[in-house]
């Protein structure tokens, strides 16, 4: 629609409308994407979304990479919760290869995924606060994202683009410091989250700014295949963790919060409640990990799980597997799989077609940001500029996930 030519032209001197370019570099877009808006004063008459500014052709690149080298690509989708993407990808390949994962690994993965869900929701909710002008509340909670990154650093060595875990499990076990840091986080974070909620949940100005803004009906949300907190805010209790449990989510006791009107305030509340539920899940997972046999952090699949360096140097079998994995000598079964996980923004799906070789024949990422965003321009019609920006913040559009 809008490729290299103006979306609107201002040729009509009688026109009362103004064309406003919201983006590609605008502080409210929190990433690189553009909205070309027709404005009547402060009110938006119509808008066109332009995307693709950071399109990196990941799906095409993936066709030329062995499975384990696709993990770093998924890091760069929704970079606010990379571990969920990593895990989703590992599980997709495990589904393809029919690998059974030990329970302990499942629980460790759940801990990692729920931590990154919290970090994702921290970003979205604090950014809503920031965009309404409440900078202090933003900073109160935002430092806990840092603490989560410190935990990731302890677990895998990286912070933002984590590349966490391997096909068949994790690349190393959690150490004592990691558990200590998680426990510390579980103690400190609820206090800060409660403070954050007490500053905003009943704040008159904040409610005025968010309640009733960008209301979405259940029908519209389903028509645009919305998922995640956005869909749940409209009142539909669809959560992949519950409807199609993966990584032993069925073992956990948690609630799926839903809203009523789908407006910005409901989305904010849903995300806040999900953070509380994530804390519950992590607490349960820590308990469950204790009951499992110690030291297991990957499935026994020598064909696909890279052996440790020590073994490679001292053990012939390990050396052979190492060589075969690295040189791509092992073929995967010819099959088609779809696996979805509940990402920070909704159902994050991986549709993988394998023709029997070492690389995917075709790989498609179902990226929730991209799908949720498709309604944005239509939603903005008739809105005030301020509302449109709060709406964008509450949709948590991450440019990496939008463009892939």
């Amino acid at each position: 629609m809008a490729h290299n030519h103006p979306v609107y032209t201002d040729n009509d001197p009688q026109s009362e409308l103004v064309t406003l370019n919201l983006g590609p570099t605008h502080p409210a877009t929190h990433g690189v994407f553009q909205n070309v808006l027709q404005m009547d004063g402060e009110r938006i008459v119509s808008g066109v979304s332009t995307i693709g500014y950071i399109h990196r052709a990941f799906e095409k690149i993936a066709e030329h990479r062995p499975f384990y080298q696709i993990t770093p690509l998924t890091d760069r989708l929704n970079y606010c919760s990379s571990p969920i993407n990593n895990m989703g990808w590992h599980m997709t390949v495990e589904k393809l290869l029919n690998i059974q994962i030990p329970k302990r690994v499942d629980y460790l993965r759940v801990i990692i995924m729920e931590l990154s869900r919290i970090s994702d929701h921290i970003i979205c909710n604090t950014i809503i606060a920031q965009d309404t002008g409440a900078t202090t509340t933003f900073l109160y909670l935002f430092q806990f994202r840092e603490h989560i990154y410190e935990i990731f650093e302890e677990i895998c060595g990286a912070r933002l683009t984590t590349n966490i875990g391997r096909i068949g499990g994790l690349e190393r076990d959690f150490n004592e410091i990691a558990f200590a840091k998680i426990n510390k986080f579980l103690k400190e974070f609820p206090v800060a989250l409660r403070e954050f909620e007490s500053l905003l949940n009943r704040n008159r100005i904040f409610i005025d700014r968010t309640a009733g803004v960008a209301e979405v009906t259940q029908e519209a949300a389903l028509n645009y295949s919305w998922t995640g907190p956005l869909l749940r805010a409209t009142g539909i209790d669809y959560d992949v963790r519950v409807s199609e449990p993966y990584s032993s989510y069925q073992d956990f006791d948690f609630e799926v919060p839903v809203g009523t009107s789908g407006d910005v305030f409901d989305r904010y509340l849903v995300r806040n409640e999900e953070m509380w539920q994530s804390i519950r899940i992590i607490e349960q997972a820590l308990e469950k990990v204790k009951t499992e046999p110690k030291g297991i952090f990957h499935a026994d699949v020598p064909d696909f799980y890279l052996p440790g360096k020590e073994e490679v140097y001292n053990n012939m079998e390990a050396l052979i597997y190492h060589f075969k994995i690295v040189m791509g000598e092992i073929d995967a079964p010819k099959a088609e799989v779809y696996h979805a996980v509940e990402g920070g923004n909704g159902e994050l799906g991986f549709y993988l077609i394998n023709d029997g070789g070492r690389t995917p024949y075709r790989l498609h990422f179902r990226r929730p940001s991209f799908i949720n965003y498709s309604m944005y321009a239509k939603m903005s019609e008739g809105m005030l500029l301020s509302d449109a920006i709060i709406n964008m913040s509450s949709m948590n559009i991450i440019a990496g996930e939008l463009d892939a």
Partner: protein
Amino acid sequence: MDINFVIEKFVLITILFAISLLIAMYSTYAERKVAAFLQDRLGPDRAGPFGILQPLADGVKMFMKEEIIPANANKWLFMVGPGLAMLCACIGTAVIPWGQDMVIGDRVIPLQVTDINVGLLYIFGVISLGVYGVMIGGWASNNKYSLLSAIRAASQNISYEIAMGLSIIALLLVSNSLSLKEIVEQQHGFNWNFWYQPLGFLIFMVCAFAETNRAPFDLPECEAELNGGYHMEYSSMKLGFYLFAEYINMFVSSTVMAALYFGGYNYPGMDYIAAQWGPTWAPLFGTFIFFMKIFAFIFFFMWVRWTIPRFRYDQLMNLGWKTLIPLAIANIIVTGIVIALTNNF
């Protein structure tokens, strides 16, 4: 004309100008420190002890930056904008009575640049003019965001001036004078207008927040939507002028609030102090008290900014027209009735 008079006034004006600028400079520092305090941070601490030289460093930075004037901007108005904003901010302090008359030797020196009998109107005039700087700057930038911001600023200031003016009318009913000096004199000791006009003060304060474009009414420079708004295209000291003007306006607003409602240089026990310290030093102590009140208000401005979110444009208008103006009118009526009753019975 008495040459001493000229010297006196010249010195007073120079001091006032210097103090305005100094307070504006250190308000930027204070704002960052207050924000840091409220947000669990340290704030600026690199330049000098406790970062006390930070405003100087910022000032030097502002002057050294490259000056950019957009190609399609209206150059003349683009330059007039910040100048006008600064000018209007600086001349507001002229009618403020800073203290009681000071006696040095046999000379009586009023601590006020000029006591015009419509001092209050003068202040309102100056504050109203202030929005021209923002409007002209926003329009001349030839940027749509700046233009939106200028429109917001203009409508916001005009709307809130009405409520502000109405809240002042009730005060005038109480004080019977437009001269700031007289209004402050009447509040001798602890007889502050705040006790007679609490609602009027509340309305006045809300409007002062809106007039100075401070949070929660900082819509014209709303960084999330308009990226700084009217001063988006400005760089170098022109930008500095806008930022400075905002802080000077905050200072002037605090001064006016302190003078009109909180007794200015008056404080309980001032007669005792005057008797003890004599007519040279007691007025200066009054001035000190006045500044303490002003700083308290400036702190309040900052406290609010770093605590609550900002309004939306239509909510701002609703608050101004549908809440503050009716309240201010009701305040006038109640005040009038009370005065009529107390005078006649």
